[in-house]
């Protein structure tokens, strides 16, 4: 399959580092992190988090959940909603699709509901929200909020969820089942993930240090991210960036440990390069999964060192906004896209001493360099991998 005609029309990102992409550019340029010591209400875990406090007081009535508040706050940023209005008018609302990725959906709300059961142990009226307490919650809410009436689906493959939305979006567009598609990812801090990752002893008591010798675990964060995708021939304006390739694979190894040699990850990267019709050395920048866990960074780092030359610059950007789980795929895809548009490679924040077993191009400092092809890696529980390649369109015409 060749997908050299899927354009990124618009995008937005909301994380602990910045409310929108414009502010994120500044946070990246100045290397200001959004991480803070855990102050999530009623959680006494000794860790650092990427919390978006602006969503604390949002009230969505019958749609209320922290996850939906995050989705709504993200939609208010930039020009995403205005673009969607234009596309709904141009194509009809039923010809626009929605593909959301999430790992928690709105389980935060189910947790809260369970703390407010009535004397019979039943849900109290304000929590009787069928459209919220189910894994498709994000897709249903974003459809409701945007007035898009075409197909809306939610992908829940843990930490690869919102990377895979690009692959599904490309297939829907190529199949002409929609004329434009809003792809997104949303995940929020909740006790399930905070205490779940704590039970796996994966949380760090410090700000995360991906790929560092002294890394000691991950930080959890919350985020939303959106992109509008269209077929090139239908675009009146776009960002000058296209989805050049994607690769999806499975580790077939373990529910919560990555494959020891990164075989699944390797397969996803190779598939994405093949689809993009690019050799590894053409990739100028890779936004790594880089969670700061011992296992991920060791395995991913060795794999990258074996597959890519030193001219491919890499970084993990989780030091800015933490690991945002089901929202991480799109958050980091958008950072890679924005790097290509601004010709600025974000440094690997908090890196002091590269893991002595690793050898590839990674540095804490930002680098100004002209970029043509960029990549983003996402790996999730269940051994679920997705790799994306984005390219500047000017350099690609007729190349595939």
């Amino acid at each position, binding site marked *: 399959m060749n997908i050299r005609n899927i354009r990124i029309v618009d995008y937005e990102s909301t994380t602990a580092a910045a409310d929108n992409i414009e502010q994120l550019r500044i946070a990246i340029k100045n290397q200001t992190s959004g991480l803070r010591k855990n102050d999530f209400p009623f959680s006494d875990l000794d860790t650092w988090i990427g919390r978006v406090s602006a969503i604390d007081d949002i009230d969505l009535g019958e749609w209320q959940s922290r996850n939906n508040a995050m989705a709504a706050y993200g939609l208010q940023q930039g020009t995403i909603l205005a673009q969607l209005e234009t596309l709904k008018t141009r194509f009809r609302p039923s010809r626009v699709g929605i593909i959301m990725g999430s790992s928690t959906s709105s389980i935060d709300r189910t947790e809260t509901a369970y703390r407010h059961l009535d004397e019979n142990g039943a849900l109290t009226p304000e929590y009787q929200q069928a459209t919220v307490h189910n894994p498709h919650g994000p897709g249903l809410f974003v459809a409701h909020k945007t007035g898009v009436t075409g197909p809306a689906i939610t992908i829940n493959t843990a930490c690869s969820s919102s990377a895979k939305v690009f692959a599904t979006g490309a297939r*829907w567009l190529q199949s002409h089942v929609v004329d434009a598609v809003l792809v997104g990812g949303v995940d929020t801090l909740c006790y399930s993930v905070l205490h779940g990752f704590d039970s796996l002893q994966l949380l760090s008591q410090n700000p995360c240090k991906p790929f560092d010798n002294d890394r000691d675990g991950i930080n959890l964060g919350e985020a939303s991210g959106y992109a509008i995708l269209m077929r090139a021939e239908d675009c009146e304006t776009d960002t000058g960036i296209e989805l050049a390739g994607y690769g999806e694979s499975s580790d077939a190894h373990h529910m919560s440990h990555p494959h020891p040699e990164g075989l699944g990850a390797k397969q996803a990267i190779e598939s994405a390069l093949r689809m993009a019709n690019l050799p590894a050395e053409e990739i100028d920048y890779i936004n790594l999964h880089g969670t700061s866990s011992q296992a991920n960074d060791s395995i991913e780092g060795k794999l990258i060192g074996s597959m890519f030359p030193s001219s491919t610059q890499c970084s993990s950007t989780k030091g800015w906004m933490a690991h945002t789980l089901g929202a991480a795929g799109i958050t980091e895809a958008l950072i890679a896209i924005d790097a290509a548009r601004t010709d600025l490679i974000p440094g690997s924040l908090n890196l002091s001493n590269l893991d002595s077993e690793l050898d590839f191009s990674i540095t804490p400092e930002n680098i100004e360099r002209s970029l043509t092809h960029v990549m983003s890696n996402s790996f999730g529980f269940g051994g679920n991998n997705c790799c994306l390649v984005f390219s500047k369109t000017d350099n690609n015409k007729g190349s595939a």
Partner: protein
Amino acid sequence: MSDNILRCSIKAVGGWGQNYTNWQELSELLTTGATAENTASSPKPEIIPANERRRAPLPVKLAVESSWQATQSAGLDPKDLACVFVSGLGDTQLTDYMCKVLATENMQLSPTKFHNSVHNAAAGYWTISTGCMKAANSVAGFNESVSLAILEAVTQCVQEQAPVQITFYDAPSSEILKPLLKNDQSFSASLIIEPVLESNQTDSNLLEMQVVSQATEWPELDLETHLDTSYKQNPSARILAVLNMLTKDSADTVLLPLSAETSLQLTLHNPKLVN
């Protein structure tokens, strides 16, 4: 592409539910109108290694059993198949466990139950058990889970010109969530779909899919009482609207709700009861 019709063929079916232990039994319930009897409360999918099987939640066992049956019936190695798993409700028993623990003081979760709580647990257990390293998807579509998963799998099958396994599964809801997510039936079914040549009109179980801009409701089916309960309660059991066409003598079309203003139109040509 002008007509936006996507074509594939259904190669095999698998299934395990409240009232049947395989596709043959289910197809008999669909054709003879015989009254269904309850099967065991959970399948025991042999493909999952015994120590893993003990830890596997019911929705995972439903999904893996039916997926294994379908791949066996198709004579295909699961290693060669991309897969799409869909559950409309998720694992509400695990949600219930987590939310109950998290409502207590100590909030200590079991690490195994935590990693099993991901929506892609079924895809994870399946790929680990079979050694499948292909793309594995795990999606949710609430009441439209069946039509959205078909859309996802057929677009993948056609665009990537590769066979895809689709598994639809939902287990009974936990007590606290049951008033909202009214399901007390176990149901799973799997389809193996394959790409077809544009010119080929004679393939058995040739499926044509089209997204049409018109709203619709789930079609009324003339089903045996127990299956009818599943069809009405269990989001995944709505695949019966498609499986039913496989038991007919001639081509048939169904219109399934897909979104607020779209439907999925499915036409099955040359129906043949596959094993």
